[in-house]
């Protein structure tokens, strides 16, 4: 299907994009890669009067080193993020999640910032961003502000980005030398996970020294499995070593029930996938 008619702007700076947003308010919609927005417009689930395309703003694209963090421009497409040397070295969990996100064609267009701003609870990038303690840089007419991952994800398809604001970049604290794995359970490839688990671990002398675990599609936002993280400290990186910690993965979650599985089934998946993800991240 074809979207309803809209006007179109393709600003080349963030300032121009912000003033267009301020001018058109509620009637405007930001477009990044369009890989989630265009299907919505084509189904006519939304009909903005104005589409503001960020695709021509070069400053929003690319990855840079900023001391103890790497900074990923919101408009960097998935395939570029996945093969970026800074990302692979300091935030290996992110390429692991992108590897199984959608398909090659969608990864060529869809962007890191677009996927996070979309905040689909089944989206593959929220849990890794949360697990790594990412910070979100949001620009508005009054300047920029930085929001932590804990506050960024508000609800289903809802983030801390205001209607007159734009996500410009995501700062990811360096996790250099950490092992990482994204365990995604799907019915068909190139689709959103029924449940997925993002795990990053730092090993020390044959046991787990620190762990970060994020859950995808276990509630209306990505969830950090803090009880699991705490219980993993000192554990051996084996199936048996992490089993008890992984048993706590579903605690405090509120997973949906749908045709792919009911909430209990998802809780079961969270426990099993957490065990697999942590063992794989630890290189076991």
């Amino acid at each position, binding site marked *: 299907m074809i979207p309803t008619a809209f006007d179109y702007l393709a600003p080349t700076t963030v300032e121009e994009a912000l003033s267009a947003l301020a001018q058109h308010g509620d009637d405007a919609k930001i477009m990044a890669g369009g890989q989630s927005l265009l299907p919505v417009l084509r189904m006519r689930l939304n009909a903005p009067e104005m589409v503001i395309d960020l695709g021509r703003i070069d400053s929003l694209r690319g990855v840079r080193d900023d001391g103890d963090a790497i900074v990923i421009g919101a408009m960097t497409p998935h395939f570029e993020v996945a093969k970026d040397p800074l990302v692979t070295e300091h935030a290996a969990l992110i390429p692991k999640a992108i590897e199984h996100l959608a398909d090659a*064609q969608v990864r060529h267009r869809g962007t890191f910032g677009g996927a996070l701003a979309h905040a689909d609870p089944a989206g593959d990038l929220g849990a890794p961003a949360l697990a790594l303690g990412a910070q979100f840089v949001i620009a508005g007419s009054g300047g920029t502000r930085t929001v932590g991952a804990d506050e960024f994800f508000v609800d289903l398809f809802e983030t801390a980005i205001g209607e007159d604001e734009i996500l410009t970049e995501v700062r990811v604290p360096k996790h250099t030398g950490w092992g990482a794995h994204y365990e995604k359970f799907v019915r068909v*490839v190139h689709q959103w996970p029924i449940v997925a688990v993002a795990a990053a671990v730092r090993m020390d002398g044959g046991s787990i020294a620190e762990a970060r675990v994020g859950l995808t599609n276990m509630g209306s936002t990505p969830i950090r499995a803090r009880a699991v993280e705490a219980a993993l400290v000192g554990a051996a990186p084996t199936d048996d070593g992490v089993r008890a910690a992984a048993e706590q993965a579903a605690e405090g979650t509120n997973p949906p029930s749908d045709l792919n599985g009911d909430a209990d089934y998802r809780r079961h998946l969270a426990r099993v996938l957490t065990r697999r993800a942590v063992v794989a991240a630890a290189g076991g």
Partner: protein
Amino acid sequence: MTRIHLTVDGASVADDVEPRMLLVQYLREKLGKTGTVIGCDTSNCGACTVHLDGRSVKSCNVLAVQADGAEVTTIEGLSKNGSLHQVQESFRECHGLQCGFCTPGMIMQSVDLLNENPNPSEEEIRLGLEGNLCRCTGYHNIVKAVQHAAAQGSSTVGQGAQA
């Protein structure tokens, strides 16, 4: 209406288009490039795959205005001087199609895959084509066709896609 200028299969084109016009519509309805087909409403099937600045995209999920200034290669731009691209040749050789509806997208995605990875394993081929659905072949001969194209050498692969 928004004015766009782009290169499609080596030719410069310019048109006034409605911002809501999809790239696939532009290719088919404005330029008559009906080699690129539409197989779904949900951006799942991959039949509409073309190359935008050298990378594969689903042209049903890109606006024509987003392609302003870009280079687009469709299935119709792959052959050179009347001879088929190696991947097209291999699909014919290995019987990589039955009804042929998925074929333009399969071939464009296979060219992209081989540009990135000239010697893919069988698993890498299957994963690389995960965004392209085929209702007829069961995929085996499609995978064989890509393996065949890879075996012919990466130097001949991708010649059209780079154009």
